[in-house]
């Protein structure tokens, strides 16, 4: 053991162990609270983990790069988790096959609405062009959205932030909003969550209902394809 607690901190704060542990412990705690409140929308574990970890980084003066060196092991699993969506999709294949046509129509309308609404609103608010470009792909999953942002010469890290913020807001609002509209078709509710709020919306949908989760997963995957084709078209047309 070192005599100097500061040198122990210097060692730990530079190792992946500390930041991986901080991520997992914070999530375990916020998820336990979410379960205790019977998955209340405002007890969203992503939202609360973000401000807790963010505050901790600011207080300890830790750079995001240092944090990410530890947290990247969790981040990496986003890819395998996307592949894993094949399992609920397979288990619900009959329900999904029966709803192919409504899904395709809703995909076209939803994907276009997500892009056009954000670009027009950002223009109305008078935001600078590079910020508008960074916000445009916000409804698809982080990795894909950052790729789109890069190809538009926008700011991929701002895109990642807007993707996560969109996901959290969608996950919080989807259940009260859908209850308000009185729509009880969990296929449609889940599909909308996946289109508007990608993986965080899908995670929320799985908490509410398995069928909703499956449709959200399909929506998120299809939207990743459609949005990467639509965003470049939409911004050239809308931002002339």
């Amino acid at each position, binding site marked *: 053991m070192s005599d100097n607690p500061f040198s122990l901190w210097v060692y730990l704060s530079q190792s992946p162990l500390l930041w991986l542990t901080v991520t*997992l412990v914070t*999530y375990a705690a916020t*998820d336990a609270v979410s379960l205790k409140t019977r998955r209340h929308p405002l007890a969203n574990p*992503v939202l609360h*983990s*973000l401000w807790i*970890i*963010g505050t901790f980084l600011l207080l300890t003066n830790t750079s995001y790069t240092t944090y990410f060196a530890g947290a990247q092991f969790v981040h990496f699993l*986003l*890819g*395998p988790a*996307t*592949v894993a969506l*094949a*399992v*609920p999709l*397979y288990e619900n*294949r009959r329900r999904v096959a029966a709803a192919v046509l*409504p*899904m395709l129509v*809703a995909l076209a309308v*939803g994907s276009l609405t*997500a892009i056009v*609404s*954000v670009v027009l*609103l*950002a223009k109305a608010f008078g935001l600078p062009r590079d*910020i508008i470009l960074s916000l445009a792909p*916000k409804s698809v999953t*982080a990795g*894909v959205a950052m*790729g789109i942002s890069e190809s538009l010469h926008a700011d991929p*890290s*701002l895109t990642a*932030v*807007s993707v*996560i*913020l*969109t996901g*959290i*807001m969608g996950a919080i*609002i*989807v259940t009260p*909003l*859908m209850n308000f509209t009185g*729509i009880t*078709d969990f296929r*449609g509710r889940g*599909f*909308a*969550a996946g*289109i*508007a709020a990608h993986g965080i919306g899908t995670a*929320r949908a*799985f908490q509410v209902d398995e069928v909703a989760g499956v449709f959200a997963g399909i*929506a998120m*995957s299809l939207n990743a*394809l459609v949005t*990467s*084709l639509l965003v470049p078209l939409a911004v050239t047309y809308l931002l002339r």
Partner: protein
Amino acid sequence: MIASLSLILLCQLVGEVAVRALAVPVPGPVVGLVLLLLLLLARDRYPALARGPLGNDGVESASRVMLANLSLLFIPAGVGVVQKLDLLAEHGTAILVILAVSVIVTLLATVATFVAASSLFSREDETP
């Protein structure tokens, strides 16, 4: 468990290699999803495939564990917000309002279209 994880990683790996080799604008993991789905469907037709990770609920239970904790996986990217605090201080309110309105409009447009289309298509099925 390890064999199941290997199968999932293998599907993603093949997906990543395929999209890069063919230069198509599709995310690699999405191709991996389709591959795993095809494997599971092939298992229904050829029972000989039901072994290793594809037998005994192997890949199914590994996938369920991962999907049950999907929220966790977004935290590392989300913490990146600490790098953007100055930008958020300048345009934060506008960005939050824009994203919130856009997400509500998108949710409503998508669910309304889905419900309308599914009742339209099921009515067509019923007519002889």
